[in-house]
């Protein structure tokens, strides 16, 4: 598959550029638009608003929590591409129309630009966050 490698390279370029110039050049932003389509602008908005938090437990386990526009908190996994938002379930899982949802893209962009908030929690609290998602989904 080609697209993931392309997406990854684009994000790396963004990271490199940001590290060197504290800025993201226009062509890379347009590249984001090209690859990720309609998710690009909302993802950047989430980054602008510092909506991404990296949650870390003492064992080293991490996950990401993204505050959505509606005020809802979504959880994104570190180990694989997964997000608890409905758009992920629909566009990515069901229709395979998108590589990522805007929340996962926001996680990567926040990583690239050092815009993640950090939160340290206990092992149990991390587990509870994951389990809480399960309960919500019934």
């Amino acid at each position, binding site marked *: *598959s*080609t*697209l*993931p*490698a*392309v*997406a*990854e*390279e*684009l*994000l*790396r*370029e963004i*990271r490199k550029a940001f590290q060197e110039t504290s800025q*993201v050049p*226009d*062509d890379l*932003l*347009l*590249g*984001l*638009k*090209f*690859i990720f*389509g309609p998710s*690009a*602008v*909302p993802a*950047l*908005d989430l*980054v*602008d*608003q510092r909506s991404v938090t990296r949650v870390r437990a003492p064992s080293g386990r991490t996950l990401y929590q993204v505050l959505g526009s509606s005020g809802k908190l979504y959880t994104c996994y*570190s*180990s*694989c*591409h*997964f997000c608890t938002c409905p758009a992920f379930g629909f566009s*990515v899982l069901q229709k*395979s*129309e*998108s*590589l990522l949802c805007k929340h996962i893209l926001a996680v*990567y962009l926040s*990583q*690239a630009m050092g815009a993640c908030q950090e939160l340290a929690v206990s092992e149990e609290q991390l587990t509870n966050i994951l389990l809480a998602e399960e309960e919500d989904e019934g």
Partner: protein
Amino acid sequence: LCRGGLAERLCRLQNRERSAISFWRHQCISDGKVPSDKSGVLIVKILEIFEECTIQVAICQQLAQSSATLSPEDAVINAEEPILKVLFTRETAAHLKSSPQDVIHIYPPWQKLLLQNADVPVIMNTYFSQKVLLSEHSEAREKTYGLKKMLIRKNIISLAQTFRLDDLDDKLHQESSDNQVPCAPQTHNKGDSKQHPPALSAVNDSLLEMVESQGAVGWREVQVRVVIQRVYCLPAREGYRSHTQGNKPLCATPITNSDPPNVRLCLLVQDAYGMFSEVQLQSLSSTDDIERYCQRWEGKSCCLAGMKILQRTTRGRALGLFSLIDSLWPPVVPVKVPGQSQESEMMTTNLPPPSFCYILTVQSGEIHVEVDEEEQISNLYQPPAVHGLKEILRISGRNERCSFWAQVLYQRLQSKHSVPIDQREMLLFVTDSTLQNVVHGIPKVVAVSVTASCVLSMEVIEALSADSQLVFFKDALWGNGRIICVERTVLLLQKPLLCSAAGADLSELTGPVRLDELDSTTQASSICALRGTVVGVNESTAFSWPTCNRCGNGKLELCPQDRELLYCNQCSEVVTTPVLKMQLEVFLSCPSRSQSTVKVKVWHEISMALFVLLTMLLFLQTYEVQSVLGKEVGLLSCYVHSITSHPNCVALEEIVLL
């Protein structure tokens, strides 16, 4: 959107880009020719197209810069020319309608991206792309595009592949194997200890997995271990028809059909997860083997390999099959629940009965079914539950499978002469001690209907015609107040090895068989006993005919050599001492059903000696009807043809019980 943020910036850039794209496209259409600015135009020839998440990926060859009048024939693929991966958005792809061998011009601003570990550069931002159209073929190409679009391969991206943005990690992107989400069902490899031919893989215990692996690499080698719950024969779908051999007389002789019956041996198997499957094996040359297979195979484990899926059927479409499956539900031992680890097996008290079932068949050629005949009966096996007929008649359900032992008293073939003998339905009148020992309330004898789809072995057919038989009815169907033998019902003469509840003792009859006497509750198509007084004779129905003393054939012919001798074409011999059968309809007055006119077709066999006398008497018309009137007729066994209420008449036929 945040003021001055990235999102706002991208929005502005995007709007600008969109206007540029529509302006450019408009220019292309209106000019009718390619815009003159040639610098920076990328000319590519598409070799292959596939799709990933709405992005169209085109593997292309970059062509040398040349004029717009380049014809595709000139654009010979030169191995030296570089390969590119050109990405198009869904909207651009729809606009281009490109297919392999097309030549595309990509105008700036396009972007080139070099991937870390790949040689092939990627071209992005290809909004300003145009296809070079050939004048002759353009229309045809447009039409076939729609079809070709459907054939574009779509790659599904794995979610396990995450992005690493740091340079400190490996340049080669790796999937973190320990965090990998397993997407394929876990294969439970239960004990690789079985020594199978090297071509076959380790044994699996899930039918569903085997079914899902169909078509995948190595599926032929997948083996599944299952328990054989039932063995039976099904008529082949091609039509359960054997040739009618001339005008076969309807007689009481064994049906000697030399054509092989078109039946297949089938197994109903169950895996460790409780899932059922019907496996259709080879055609049987002789139905006599059914009993043997039943005895040797039922309850044993076996390994299936290289099965082909014939059908996936559901409850609504295969009522017969599911009535059998329901009789085996719930499982007698806990079954595995998919998704759980191997060690924890769940109880099955609340599992709903299955709603679908796969019908499998063997690949032509070898049979990949290995039955462990030496091994013990599996715990999962549920032998048929045997009940007395009295209990069965009281079952309230519909379409319940039931098994019982019974004594067959009388057999009657449905006489539709247009239908070949082995396709005819048959009525068997049966009884057992539970029915015989009851004083009143339930019938003493029950009619069991055997449909053409119930495969009977030759052995059973012969035995039924010859003598009163104790027959084991396995998985007959009870419904609407009738017991019927349908597909998957098996009639056996020998007791199956494992039966729950007392089997044969229920059917041991302690005395002579008694039939219900004719009364107001008697139904048509039943048998009964009657007694009464002759009150009339229907002389027009008096009839006599000679029959073969060997086989009972009632259609004797005159010998071609000597026209005074009779010849039986069933025995292929001359009949020297024919048995005369006489038939007469008499009217009886029966005290048990005094309101009705009882008309009985009685018949008797008389010997040759009396034959001559009677012929003379009939000829001389000295036969005195009067001598018959008033005669008491003892307990006759009769088959009830019909019962009418207006006039109130019962028509019966005297029968001989087996």
